[in-house]
């Protein structure tokens, strides 16, 4: 895919830093904390999970983040999905961000499939009416059949995954966030997911992807950033960055 400079920017990070402050010793209780404060013994170690990150991502890009475990990739996605407010710097996002993290988080085992669709859909910010309008599409994609009115605890794990994916992707997202999630379910389901993702790609949905699979990065991404110890080591085409990452 060719990117020209006229495409509008949808994600802009300016010197984004995230600092975690961890107490030197773990203080687990209020009682302990009160004692420590009185003794003036609360010390913190701070560490920068992200340090002065600057990125511009344009509409329609499929942007990959690679790097070792603990490098800050997931923290970066949290900052973009509004879950974490940066300690310093500025995050500017145009459009609704839909994180597709761990399918089915927020499901309740005692509720029926239908009830869980409504619960999960509203958690993702959709209104009841919007969900009603798409209910059939969701249950068809998830292939629930008669199970739609059975409690979720009677579902197979594949059904739960399908339902989670169906709810999360039925609405065309403006910015999609994928954090190592597409490895669940059987082959047929994997294929279905891939097709849907392919559809998003042709529809110019901006996607952010965190993965350890260089194959996926090469196959899907238009641009890649390599993150190490909270800083960007390299950005560019998948080939360049993967090469640099393997050498580094």
């Amino acid at each position, binding site marked *: 895919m060719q990117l020209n400079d006229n495409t509008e920017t949808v994600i802009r990070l300016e010197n984004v830093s995230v600092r*975690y*402050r*961890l107490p030197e010793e773990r203080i*687990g*209780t*209020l*009682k302990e*904390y009160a004692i420590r404060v009185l003794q003036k013994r609360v010390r913190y170690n701070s560490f920068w999970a992200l340090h002065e990150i600057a990125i511009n991502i344009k509409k329609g890009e499929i942007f990959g983040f690679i790097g070792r475990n603990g490098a800050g990739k997931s923290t970066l996605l*949290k900052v973009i*999905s*509004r*879950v*974490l*407010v*940066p300690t310093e*710097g*500025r*995050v*500017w*996002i*145009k*459009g*609704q*961000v839909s*994180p597709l*993290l*761990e399918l089915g*988080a*927020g499901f*309740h085992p*005692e*509720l029926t499939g239908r*009830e869980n669709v*409504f*619960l999960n859909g*509203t*958690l*993702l*910010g*959709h*209104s*009841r009416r919007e969900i009603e309008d798409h209910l059939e599409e969701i249950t068809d994609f998830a292939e629930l059949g008669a199970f739609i009115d059975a*409690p979720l605890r009677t579902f197979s794990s594949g059904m739960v995954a399908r339902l989670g994916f169906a709810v999360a992707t039925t*609405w*065309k*997202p*403006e910015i999609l966030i994928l954090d190592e999630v597409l490895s669940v379910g059987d082959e047929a389901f994997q294929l279905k997911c891939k097709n849907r993702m392919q559809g998003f790609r042709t529809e110019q949905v901006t996607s952010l992807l965190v993965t350890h699979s260089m194959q996926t990065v090469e196959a899907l991404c238009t641009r890649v950033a390599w993150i190490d110890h909270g800083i960007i080591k390299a950005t560019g085409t998948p080939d360049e960055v993967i090469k640099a990452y393997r050498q580094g």
Partner: protein
Amino acid sequence: MEVSEKTMIYDSAKRGSSALEELRGIFQYRDLIYQLVRRDIVTRYKRSVLGIAWTMLQPLGMMIVMTVVFSSLFQTVEGYPSYLLSGLIAWTFFAQTTTAAIHQIVWGGTLLHRIYLPRTSFAVSAIGTGVINLMFSLVPLIAIMLITGRPIQWSIIFVPIAMLLLAAFALGVGLILSTLAIYFPDVTEMYQIILVAWMYLTPIIYPEEILPEAYRFWVTNLNPMYHLIQIFRIPLYGGILPSWTEVAIASVIAVATLIIGWLFFSKKADEFTYQA
């Protein structure tokens, strides 16, 4: 949130007041609040034979036990079962919803690490569930009043206002507690101990007249729950409207607690996801 109609812009550098942002969020996510309340009500009763009747039987059982134990002790109280039950259901509402608000934020914490939600949703839905349960528990109270021959007066129309004020107070307290619980898990246990002491310091099972003259002023006037229970109990058990002074005091307590709780929670909410 409408995805298609208007493009949302999020700018971390241009965020208004966090308290107002939360308020707007709750309005936007109102369907989520409804779903969370529904989930709590449905899952609580789904696998029990008696279903929703539990909400009514539980305070009734408590009342019967306490009436058996205490009614000869508090013979001065006219219509003791109604006196007791009216105070008890208001207290139970407060104790259960504030505790639920803590549990909800702890449960929701994992979700807050994954997706953006108005963070007050959990406390608000806990109070919502409590209000529904409180409405159900009015049924046994009214039944007991009819059985024991206490007339139900038209002053009962004031009860929704009393419930609203109770809910506002409980939400304020619930928000403060759930903020603390994010940082310190032992808040939950500590609060349970406080609740027991607080309940016995509030005239619920005993009439306030039995309090020694020297302490009565402190136990009643300085205890916010005393005022909130009063405005709930007077129109039901007493059969008259509470005085303007009583209503004014209870309203000030409820609204001030809610505002303080909301501001405190919103101010700290951005830090929640920084906690491991």
